[in-house]
């Protein structure tokens, strides 16, 4: 009697791909099970939201037409006339925000659990690159509907870049494609958003995931020294994968509720000649920087206050990225304390500044 079709299909693939080896790898991969295991899932949630971004983004690009005369109109067409277009756009926007939130949580959890330490420096670096790309996605995508808020927020955002010492103005003009935000800005943001950044993101994400699989899950500090009976693990497959899937379903529900109950508005079409409306501010994930820059005086020792601010943020960001390298130089005992304090201060600072900015 011939084997069932599913077995035959599996055999066909088995003959061509190392399915058994992968299956064996997954079956033997262990995930530590402890109080902080919940933080392992945020990488997966971010990945899930990225997949949603890709799917809804592809659907949107079927109708979206970049251009000063068409951008806003095509988004309105998607929202009003395309069947479930409103839902696709709303999910795309909400999942983008949730993804950035999830990536931030993932980054801080890695930081506080010290998962960036050797040998995972590369995973940390690729992860940070992914966060930067996510924010770049947010910044470039925000302009695409070409509405008033997006237009002026982009103007403000790109103007901040111009305060970077030496290269600021040049960078701003590269970003804008000219001296001001206009048609050139829109088309290059569109190109960045749907082609350049997805390509880079996919490569970096692939590297990030491969590194995780090669290095395995990070084990908490002192885990290896604890007695074997106190060290509990769960198999990566099926246990961890199914739990990941469960969380994805919950996130999907949250996303659906947000998208339907609070659909993202299209707003009013951008008018470059109009005065900027009151209270223009960037998206919430840039607010802590935007708000902090407001506290810098106009001049600091002959230097432009904003330029000093941008420079300080650049240095702070760089120090944050290379934390695995300077952390390794700290005395062993004080490592956790100093890092925790820095992390707590950064986190509180970001939350407070974002809160002030939102209010």
């Amino acid at each position, binding site marked *: 009697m011939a084997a069932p079709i599913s077995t035959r299909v599996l055999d066909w693939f088995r003959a061509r791909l190392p399915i058994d080896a992968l299956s064996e790898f997954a079956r033997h991969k262990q995930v530590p099970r402890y109080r902080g295991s919940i933080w392992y899932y945020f990488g997966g949630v971010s990945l899930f939201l990225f997949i949603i971004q890709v799917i809804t983004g592809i659907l949107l690009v079927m109708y979206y037409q970049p251009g000063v005369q068409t951008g806003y109109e095509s988004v*309105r067409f998607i929202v009003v006339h395309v069947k479930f277009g*409103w839902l696709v756009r709303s999910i795309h926007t909400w999942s983008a925000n949730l993804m950035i939130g999830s990536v931030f949580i993932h980054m801080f959890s890695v930081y506080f659990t010290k998962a960036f330490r050797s040998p995972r420096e590369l995973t940390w670096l690729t992860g940070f690159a992914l966060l930067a790309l996510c924010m770049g996605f947010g910044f470039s995508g925000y302009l695409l509907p070409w509405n008033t808020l997006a237009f002026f927020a982009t103007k403000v955002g790109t103007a901040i870049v111009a305060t970077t010492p030496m290269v600021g103005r040049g960078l701003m003009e590269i970003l804008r494609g000219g001296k001001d935000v206009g048609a050139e800005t829109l088309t290059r943001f569109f190109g960045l958003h749907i082609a350049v950044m997805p390509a880079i993101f996919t490569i970096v994400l692939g590297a990030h995931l491969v590194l995780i699989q090669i290095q395995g899950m990070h084990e908490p500090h002192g885990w290896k020294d604890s007695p074997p009976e106190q060290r509990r693990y*769960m198999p990566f497959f099926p*246990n961890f994968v*199914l739990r990941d899937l469960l969380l994805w*379903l919950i996130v999907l529900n949250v996303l*659906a*509720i947000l998208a*339907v*109950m609070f659909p993202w508005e299209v707003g009013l079409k951008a008018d470059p000649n109009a005065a900027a409306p009151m209270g223009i501010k960037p998206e919430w994930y840039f607010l802590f920087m935007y708000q902090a820059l407001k506290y810098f005086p106009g001049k600091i020792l002959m230097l432009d206050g904003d330029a000093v601010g941008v420079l300080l943020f650049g240095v702070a960001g760089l120090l944050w990225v290379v934390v695995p390298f300077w952390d390794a130089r700290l005395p062993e005992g004080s490592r956790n304390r100093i890092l925790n304090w820095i992390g707590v201060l950064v986190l509180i600072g970001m939350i407070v500044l974002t809160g002030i900015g939102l209010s």
Partner: protein
Amino acid sequence: MSARTALPVALALAAALALDARLPAAEAPAGHPAAVDQCYSCHHDGGTPQAEAYAHDVHYQNGVTCADCHGGDPTLEDKDEGMSRARGYRGKIRSSDIPSICGRCHGPGNAEFKIRFHLSNVSDSLAAGVHGEALRNNDKGPQCVSCHGVHDIVRVDDPASPVSPRRVARTCAKCHGDAAYMREFNPRLPVDQYEKYLTSVHGKRNAAGDARPATCVSCHSNHMVMRVKDPRSPVYATRVPETCATCHANAKYMAPYHIPTDQYAQYRRSRHGIALLEKSDLNAPACNSCHGNHGAAPPGAASVVAVCGNCHQANGELYMKSPHKDAFARLNLAGCVVCHGNHGVQEPTDALVSLQAGGPCAKCHKDDGSDRAAPAIRRMRALLDSLSLGQADADRTLRHAEQLGMDVADAKYDLKDVRQALVQSRVAIHSFKVADLADAVHPGIKVLASSRKSAAEAVHDFYFRRKGLVISTLIVTITAVLLWLKIREIERDQEAGRG
């Protein structure tokens, strides 16, 4: 010879005569400065017209001598000495210098003198006005003597004065009726004001000897005459009603004419008055828009439609083709005023089209079955209501959909066409023909139907989304619960296997 050319000639003549000195003293009353005024004595005795006239001049009567204006020393019998430059003799006075010479008494200084003779600072007023500006730009421009005369100036309330109420219009017309002269100052300014004035109620009464009706200075002011487009002018668009009301709202002043004095009070509360006075809409009509300005007169029943039709052109044209035109003419009814009123005209509403007692239609039409116009009136009202009430309903539904977070911008935009149709219908009703009104209403009704449909679809879509959310959330939740149970089962099996 016109007043403006008469002056230099008169002054030149006076100067020439003044050269003929040592004339016997005139018969000036004792104590009068002219009693020792050699200028006056010689010119008077010589019988010069200037000196003859000056004997009746208000200035002469109040002790102003020739030398006060012309300079020189009037006490000297030697005319060469008295009329020498060394004695301050200026002879013929330049036209543009006259306001400053008159201004020595009628200007800002010499307070004591002004108090004594009750004079005001009119030379500064003249300089600030359009006449002063004309004089600065052109020596032929008007100055004091252009209106008041030269050596024969009398009080304004003296009927002989060229600026007395009965003569002032003619005096103004000397320049303002002279197209060649006016071309030098403002070629675009009409020169028919005086002719029109003579046809006005004001002008006719003035000509009949009544000094009370308005003359040029009543509205334009006298010394400080401003351009009509200057907001300081009493006849600037937004100030016209108040200027007219100075007389027309004064019951005591208007008592002899037996006409109402509540026009201004009505106008201020009217649609026109609110637009002009409160919203500063200079397109809104003031008194002169309907009554005329220089030729001001009540429009009269026959011309009301033409007057209103100046602005409400389409309404006026439709009315002229309507059955009401002849009917109203037969009854001597004043067209538009019958339904809309005049000074107190309010924003018209569809309620005007009503047979109810007190409504304008009910003034002539009966709702007792005997009047064949009654069904048409009801039908026209129904057509207007279908559009206006339908628009309000669609607006409400669209707002509701919008509050639910639905995008109905396109439908809201379409609703503009309904508003347009409503405006056109409210114009079309002035033909008083059901068919014309129906033609104007129907395009709006069609848009209304599609707007309502869009609104209903948006509301339906909203609830469809909610239902979809509930169902999908339920399915995902059930899947999550089943998954959780499966995980529990797998982990139990694993625990058991390890055990």
